[in-house]
């Protein structure tokens, strides 16, 4: 399989099929980043198209000696944040479709307490809602780390911060996530009996 960087070079030489391959490889991650940040399906799709057009137009600026993934993810993050700032709105999340997908695709083997998790779909929804309420900076780092499973170095390259800073930001994002979750439970008077079995 050709590397992303080679496909980028071929695109610069005028091979549109190479760019089409890049679109197919990255449409999922680009769309995920933008959808998680904006929370709107249709807008996320339009912005994703905008990202790929931008990538195509700016591809001559891409250094083919570097990795392509952080470069395109950086453009996706910046475009999504720019969209939010332009529209000055913080999004009414409609995670119904993602939540339904999640319920269908839950990998039971990876859940620490499968019984608890499956019996408490509401708990999962609470955590998803808490993710949505994170500030944009924390949300971005959470998406890159957990959804796209990027390494700390890749996240650092994407966000233009140091590797150490990535770890700090992830830690703070997790603390913020927990804070939002607990505050939500306290507000609703919800109390979960968590299984402590390992």
């Amino acid at each position, binding site marked *: 399989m050709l590397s992303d960087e080679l496909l980028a070079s071929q695109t*610069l*030489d*005028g091979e*549109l099929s190479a*760019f*089409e391959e890049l*679109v*197919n490889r990255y*449409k*999922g991650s680009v*769309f*995920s980043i933008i*959808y*998680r940040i904006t929370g709107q399906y249709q807008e*996320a*799709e339009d912005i*994703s*198209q905008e990202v*790929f*057009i931008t990538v*195509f*137009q700016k*591809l*001559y600026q891409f250094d083919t000696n570097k990795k392509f993934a952080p470069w395109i993810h950086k453009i996706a993050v910046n475009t999504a944040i720019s969209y939010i700032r332009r529209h000055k709105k913080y999004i009414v999340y409609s995670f119904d479709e*993602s*939540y339904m*997908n*999640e319920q269908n*695709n*839950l*990998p039971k083997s*990876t*859940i*620490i*307490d499968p019984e*608890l*998790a499956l019996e408490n779909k509401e*708990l*999962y929804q609470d*955590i*998803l809602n808490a*993710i949505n309420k994170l500030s944009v900076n924390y949300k971005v780092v*959470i*998406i890159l*780390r*957990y*959804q796209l*499973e990027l390494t700390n170095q890749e996240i650092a390259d994407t966000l233009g911060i140091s590797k150490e800073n990535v770890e700090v930001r992830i*830690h703070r994002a*997790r603390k913020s*996530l*927990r804070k939002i*979750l607990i505050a939500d439970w306290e507000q609703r008077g919800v109390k979960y009996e*968590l*299984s*402590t079995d390992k």
Partner: protein
Amino acid sequence: MNCQQINKYILPYCDNNLPPELVRQIDEHIASCESCANNITLTRIENSVLHNLPALEPRTDFTNDVMQKVFVTTPKDYKLKSLSKKALVTLIPIAAVLLVFIATTMPNFFNLSKISSPDISQMEVKNYAPRPQTAKEPSQESLRQTVDTGQKIADSENTAINEPKEDSVKLADNNNVFMANIEANNFKEEAEKIENYSSRAAKLKTLDNNANKIEISLANIPSDYILANVYNVSNQEIAYQYIDSNNNLTLDITLTKLETDIVEESQPFSISADMASQDEITSTCNISQVNEYSLELVNDADLYLVNFISSMPLEELIKIASSVTIK
């Protein structure tokens, strides 16, 4: 190990990224601490949710839509840019060598290219002969009329804007110029170059003993005109050049300080459009599609001749000229 220390290690503990000794200590702690045990359980549940966030995909025809837009919107532009990355390194030195070659072998090449932004001093020499001494008198007389009473302005209401006076006709017939050769006392050395070219107001700082500051402003100048250059023609003359790059038009304004002993009163003065159209026209002419219009203004007992040269229509030129004020 206490609860606070445990809290610090919860994330790496749940990710199995701790050395065995630390893991053993934490295990011992949570065996007797329900709070920390709950904390770790919730962290693990959060991890499982985060690691299993559903994969999101756009519509199936997403790629086709993108490729259509890519194909329709930018192919030519893209080719150019992709060319530039690889070829610029080679092309720029070649272009530089060519420019140097042209500059050394054909010096007139660059002179010809100045048509769009003429040098005002060269224009004056080329198009207009020096003004004879007699040509100054009508202007001074006109000024007296304006300053002293304003009544005589009304007397000449029937004078059409684009019908030059008798004196003006004589001036045009003789190919005379309107820039008066008058010595002034207050102008010293050269004016500092204007820093803000986008400003509509051209500010001129003189270096005389009184540190006078002269400012020209043009209320009626179209927004397309940008102040491009300020020349210090001589100690008594400052020239401003406005350029309308959209329509390839230029407007050259020369501010010349005249003798001041003819002005008795010292009061600020600015000329209105009506006044300009009736009496302040010292001369107009049209040579090679270049219109010229002059008027005289008084400011703090100083007399100034303001000369406008432009390829714009005369009527528009007069409108702009009539809005000039000096402070």
